[in-house]
């Protein structure tokens, strides 16, 4: 576990799998959620573990390279607010879903511009 974050994820997944196995094998608890949910957790954490290994390898090379981060990101703020409006629109009315959706598209455009500028600055 010392240098690989993936191992921590796998230990976690193994413990969850063990508990799910005990539930299924010893107590014969077949409720679908009782089995499916830990299984879901195991699958998700395993995926994260694999992703973590790859990302860690890539990041090791670049983590200490100069990075160009914007100090503020209004498109990210807009994205957060637009999601609030879209969900609120489910209750208040369709018009708000459209407004929120439009704002989200604008936010996505802004984020794309930021990412492009970042790539160029590297």
């Amino acid at each position, binding site marked *: 576990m010392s240098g690989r974050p993936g191992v921590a994820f796998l230990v976690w997944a193994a413990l969850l799998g063990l508990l799910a196995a005990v539930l299924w094998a010893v107590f014969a608890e077949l409720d679908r*959620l009782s089995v499916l949910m830990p299984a879901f*957790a195991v699958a998700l954490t395993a995926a994260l573990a694999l992703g973590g290994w790859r990302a860690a390898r890539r990041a090791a090379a670049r983590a200490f390279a100069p990075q160009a981060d914007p100090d503020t990101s209004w498109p990210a*703020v807009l*994205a957060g607010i637009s999601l609030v409006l879209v969900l609120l629109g489910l209750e208040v009315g369709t018009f708000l879903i459209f407004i929120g959706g439009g704002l989200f598209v604008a936010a996505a455009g802004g984020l794309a511009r930021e990412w492009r500028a970042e790539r160029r600055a590297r």
Partner: protein
Amino acid sequence: MTAVDAPRTRVAPPRRGLVGTLASTDHKALGAGLFATAFAFFLAAGVLALLMRFELARPHLQLLTLHGYDELFTLHGSTMFYLFATPIALAAGVYLVPLQIGAARLRWARLALAAWWMTIGGGLTMWLGFLTEQGAADVGWYAYWPLSDMPSSPSVGTDYWIVGVLLAAAAAIALAACVLATIVTERAPGMTMLRLPVFCWTMVVSCLMVLTAFPALIVAMGLLLAQRQWGGVYSGSAGAFDYQHLFWFFGHPVVYVVFFPFLGAVAEAIATFSGRRWFGYKPFVVSLLLFAALSMSVWGHHMFTTSAVENRYFSLTSTALLVPAGVEYFDALATMWRGRIRLATPMLFALGFLVLFAIGGTTGIWVASPPLDYHVTDSYFVVAHFHYTLFGGSVMGLFTAIYLWWPKVTGTLLSERLGRWHFWLTMIGMNLTFFPLFFLGWDGMPRRVADYAPGTSWSTLNALSSAGSALLAASVLVFLWNVRRSWRRRAPAGPDPWGGQTLEWATDSPPPRENFTGALPAVRSFAPLQDLREAAEASA
């Protein structure tokens, strides 16, 4: 002792002022903003709690209507869990994790920024119900179906509440992903996983739990919203049990999500103020992973009385939680053993945490036993138990964290004298508020009621509890006064006022935009500054 270069970040000149802070991608501004947001919700939920306690101080209805009381306990619990405890635990990670691992930034900071705004939006949406004609949600923080369906709770406030919960849960998942990704990808050279500071490990397990448990809440709430709009999702007793499985698969782990980070803060405080490194680091890490895994498999103990779960399994896993918890208590006591203990305010709160959480934990073992749970289920005993774990654990841990890291975050010191007042008022107020509830619950007083029969011992116990809540409110006022005083006097704290052991104490207070301007100390253990100190003592 060799040192490594500090991580570099090329940034645009920081924009000062509130407007710049509201859109900042700097993890420190983000963390502080999220922290302030969550603390504001804590104060709001505290006001609701005070109103409930004033109502219960005497028999009969004084202040509130029955429906009004339902709204208050719903918004109190929901705000505390979804808008205060979870966001503030993650905010601590957003602020501190990059500093502790020697990173210059938070991974996916824009996602975290959007999540902050989703938390604000979710909170306002949840509270929007108070402005509607039929009032806010009245379904409890768990919103059991069918009581949360349209016929039982037709208020549009309940729909707003569901939307608010969805937003807050999605935001928590995003924030946890950012913190975990930072730990995976941004660690300084030498900072292996088994050299992560204790606090970072508690954030790792908390984030793992958020990522695996919170999706169940999103599914439960999404389906509940669909059920309320169109029907046909949940039906009959199976539907009720399905909903409870989904909800409690999230609902129990969240208790640990809001506990572990503050356990980490307490561990850092105990190590720092004992002048020793944390005892039993590796067993602690394993016990955290075991603790978290077990806590993902105990949700059925909330359903003992439904006969819809395998009680033996859930009793076994719930009782087994005692093992990792015992390891952590042993580590804490062993760290203090023969240490040079300084009883500064963070240490006082850390000790208070240990005492109060022990009461919460041991009464948890009681309710992990189905026969005892049958007796006290849905009574004030359960309310007392979880307030000892949540207030005794999370809130005492939170104040440990605040007093410990305030000098780092603001560059100023809080008053020790006011800190001690705050601590003792909190300890007395907390016990006076919640200890009588054990007796009330054992005697059969049900929770979630606004009224009770006069002329019984319940009146005295409720009056005591309400007096305690007033003391708790006073303790929070003392804390706010301390904060105001600190801001006005601005007594400089210096980079390391406590003799800290982790990397955040190796930089200025408050830290610069890039976190570290000079060379980082070499990382050879989970306490790199303690290594330096011990090396200096050895050479002297």
